[in-house]
């Protein structure tokens, strides 16, 4: 009995002693980089020509609105770089100017993007603005707290477009890389 137990204790010890483990380097975890890129729409503006024609005397529509999406800590502290994409289309009979301003919490203008639109027929204007190492300062995005949108009619208030349902539209989306780790 003692002999057999001894054999098995020896075998067990053998397994323990001669079990192997290849060299592991858990410090590699420090190298882990998690930087996903997310994209979503940001802002959509639509102004029908009939609305433009209704406004007489004042040819500018301006609206400042709160936009805390970029200012949320979970985003602003992690965003690395990104691209804002604008698509502007004008099917009205008037030349127009659309201006977007990014403002910080104190109301200081951080960035401005301006679009000059000819009267119809015009192609859709697409513009991509990069922020981060390859573009404008990413701090513009980080510190943006509100957006001012200004649309100015550079034409008249009477003409009508030959297009069906004439309007001016501004579409925009953001594509941002953030660091999770």
């Amino acid at each position, binding site marked *: 009995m003692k002999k057999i*137990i001894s054999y098995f204790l020896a075998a067990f010890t053998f*397994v323990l002693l001669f079990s192997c483990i290849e060299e592991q380097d858990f410090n590699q975890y420090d190298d882990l980089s998690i930087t996903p890129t997310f994209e979503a*729409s940001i802002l959509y503006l639509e102004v029908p020509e009939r609305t433009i024609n209704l406004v007489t005397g004042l040819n500018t529509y301006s609206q400042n609105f709160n936009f805390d999406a970029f200012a949320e800590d979970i985003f602003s502290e992690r965003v690395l770089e990104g691209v804002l*994409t604008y698509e502007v289309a004008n099917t009205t009979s008037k030349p127009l100017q659309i201006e977007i301003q990014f403002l910080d919490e104190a109301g200081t203008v951080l960035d401005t993007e301006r679009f000059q639109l000819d009267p119809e027929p015009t192609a859709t204007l697409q513009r991509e603005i990069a922020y981060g190492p390859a573009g404008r300062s990413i701090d513009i995005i980080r510190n943006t707290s509100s957006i001012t949108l200004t649309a100015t009619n550079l034409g008249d208030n009477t003409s009508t477009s030959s297009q069906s349902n004439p309007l001016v539209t501004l579409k925009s989306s953001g594509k941002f890389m953030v660091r999770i780790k």
Partner: protein
Amino acid sequence: MMPKRFLFATILWVGIFVHAQNKQLLYDFTEIPQALMLNPGMETDFNWYAGIPVLSGISVQAGSSGISVNDLFANDGLDFNDKVRDRAINGLTVRDELSGTFELEILNGGFRGRDPNVFYSFGLYSEVNFINYWPKDYAILAFEGNADRLNERFDLGHLKTRGEMLNVFHFGVNKKTNSSLVLGARGKIYSSIIDINSTKNDGYFVTTEGQNNIFASTLDAELLLRTSGINAIERAIDDQNVPGTIIKRGLFGGNLGLGVDMGFTYYLNPQTIMTGSLLDVGFIYHTNEIESFSLNGNATIEGIEIILPDALLDPDQDYWENLVDDIEAFIPFEETTKSYLTFRPAKLYASLRYNFGEPMEGSADCNCDYLNPGGGSSVTKYRNSVGGQLYVINRPRGPQSAITAFYQRRFGNYMALKTTYTADKFTLTNIGLGVNFQAGPVNLYLMADNLLAYRNIAASNYASFQFGLNIISWEKK
């Protein structure tokens, strides 16, 4: 950063060393009293036994399918991010899992009744178990994001996880109804200390071409996370009274449940035996210290929309807050304390054994041989046994099974060996070895499996270890 790194590695290690609860080495190892816990209808020849408190049964099992510590942390010069991307993010599927079980017997004993055909057993053990399926789409979303993945649905149902800590009080009856059949049943009272589960999730997140704007982001969520006992532990951490709280909740102070084990042993002929058992058919009703969270609803957004002339009606409105409010209204996040029911992971064992070799007297008083098994607790032992076993456990993504071939060899009444080959989702090369020593009344057993993995433990996908110490008495001649 150090704690995070070690947490990451520990989760993988725990996943590897704690697994799917299959105790193929212990099952039907009739020399070991703890085998009764796997089949209350096991053949028994003990007069009584008493487990050494806290040392009578310790088992640790772990498994990770699809990936090992070595796959990620081997010092192989490869870029760590490439390894994570190729082997985890893109390499694992939603059926891959990290799972584990730890069991510690606090008390275990058994005695033969006045009717020598009846054997009673009782005890208390603690159990911790968890399973986490790889949340593939969540991982892709977290690692790569949704950019340039138009129309690709991220399945929110990929989140399936469950974990619990509980004490189990049990009392079992084992009866030899005739020379060919042994039946057994065990009643269980579960005292849940902690429970956390999120297994009934559904929905998706998708980015599509927008109707007005460039993109439309749609979230269709039906997510539910239920917990019990976490609150109590959090308070205990603040009060620095964690052990006291765990003990209290484990001794009927937590959430209670009931369960039953059933099993049998049937002699097809004097040397061929069929066994089967169904374990943990039970439930726990969680009524106290509940904290559950749900996210239910559907919303599609295309950013802030300013459409004139409607926007002129309320030029001072907060478009951003309105958007956030709309999303919260469509997909409300709710916290509740509603009671809930969980079912225990039921397990099924079955085996077919052929005994051969020279018959021998067992430890029990037995005026019998292999053709005349005798009565009462008498059992005819053979030197060799060979057979196959089946194991099935109910899991959140459906049953998991394992098949085992085994050979058992007895050396007198003082030692028995069992070696197994098991194939399951974790490994197809699982060879295990169990040994039982009997020195007078002292019984000691040791078991370990997936021994081939010891060539490089870090590359192992599965391992288990069991150990126990008992005092056993037979009706001596």
